[in-house]
């Protein structure tokens, strides 16, 4: 085949892709994409189940020793948490009584949909999960997603009829408006060159302490406030505008199998 013919075919292909992109931007491709996603849905569901069980079995072998150390640590942690739960129950009762006296409505309970992870972005550079719930289940863009412990893990960015895509908080493109639970300092939770999270846009004179919990502010379609990460180190530079605050995500991002989408 002559190179000229190849060039013509190449440009025809580019025009074809440009047409696809144009139609997608105008939302004309949604029915096609929904049908195509059904094609992937069942094989992905089956393969992901096999993967999770194989991965868990393999991890069990490597993590027996670590599990013993964790057990000792967790017994101590559990005792502290029991004390905190007891205190919080007292505070909850007090809160209800005071709200009754002041005629304020009770805090709203969050409703959610559960979903199972059936895949991940084929590219390594992206922290993006595919879940087995979509617009048919009532999911919409920008809804907050939490794990089984209630820790914030990301938000919905793509929705098809039976699947949806969750952009994790650890992705390069993610930036979450958040607040320090103790000192009420506001900032942005961002990815730190794929080695962790950091709390950005916090001025040098703002007070943030190690071990403080950073919670998400109501964003997008979600009005819920969820814990995201814990402060692990703080670096202050007099010649820079913002502090360098490193965070550790509270959710175990590598072990996410079940997710909960907040519908508020």
């Amino acid at each position, binding site marked *: 085949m002559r190179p000229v013919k190849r060039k013509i075919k190449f440009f025809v292909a580019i025009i074809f*892709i440009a047409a696809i992109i144009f139609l997608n931007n105008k939302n004309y491709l949604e029915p096609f994409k929904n049908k195509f996603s059904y094609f992937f849905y069942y094989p992905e569901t089956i393969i992901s189940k096999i993967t999770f069980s194989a991965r868990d079995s393999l991890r069990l072998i490597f993590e027996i020793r670590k599990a013993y150390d964790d057990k000792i640590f967790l017994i101590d942690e559990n005792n502290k948490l029991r004390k905190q739960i007891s205190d919080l129950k007292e505070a909850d009762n007090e809160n209800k009584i005071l709200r009754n006296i002041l005629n304020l409505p009770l805090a709203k309970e969050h409703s959610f949909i559960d979903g199972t992870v059936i895949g991940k972005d084929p590219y390594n550079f992206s922290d993006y999960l595919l879940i087995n719930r979509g617009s048919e289940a009532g999911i919409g863009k920008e809804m907050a997603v939490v794990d089984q412990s209630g820790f914030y893990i990301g938000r919905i960015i793509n929705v098809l009829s039976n699947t949806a895509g969750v952009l994790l908080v650890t992705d390069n493109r993610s930036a979450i408006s958040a607040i320090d639970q103790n000192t009420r300092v506001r900032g942005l939770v961002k990815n730190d060159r794929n080695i962790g999270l950091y709390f950005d846009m916090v001025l040098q004179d703002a007070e943030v302490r190690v071990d403080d919990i950073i919670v998400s502010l109501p964003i997008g379609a979600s009005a819920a406030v969820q814990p995201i990460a814990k402060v692990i180190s703080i670096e202050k530079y007099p010649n820079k505008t913002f502090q360098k605050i490193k965070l550790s995500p509270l959710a175990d991002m590598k072990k996410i199998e079940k997710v909960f989408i907040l519908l508020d």
Partner: protein
Amino acid sequence: MKIAHAVLILILSIVIQASLVRLFDLFSFAPNLSLVALFLLCYFLSFEKLLILAIIAGIAIDLLSSVSFGSTSLAAMGACSLSFYLRKNVLKGGRIADFFLNSLITFFVFYFLLGQADIFLKSSTDYAAIFNLININLAGEILFNLALSAAAYYLAGYYKSGKIYGFTRNIKISP
């Protein structure tokens, strides 16, 4: 090779990549099976079939990925065409060194084009993708891809001849 067979292999590799390789997640990075499959299939297809395959691969990957719709098709088409050109005109020795060089250039060009297309199609303010080119995960992925391609190349050579080739021996697997 028939285009239908190539599409089937590619779709299977994409599903395995998204639901098995990426979910297994024992290391911080993993090979991109779908990209390796696409690159290797290019060796068995004519130019026009290669373009069709790149478009289908792009659409299928973009449905499961967070990159903007159409970016992968553009990047795959550019990278596969470059690979085809290099194989026919520059690196035509058929040695494993030619294969390695072609793989390395193709994978790097693919991610470069993907980053640029993603930025262009989303918005000019999203610079995250360009940093991915110097991302440690991406470097690891390209190395894994090279290893996987080399293994597949070796197996293809073994399949064709019935014996394992040495590194300097010529292996012709082009159509």
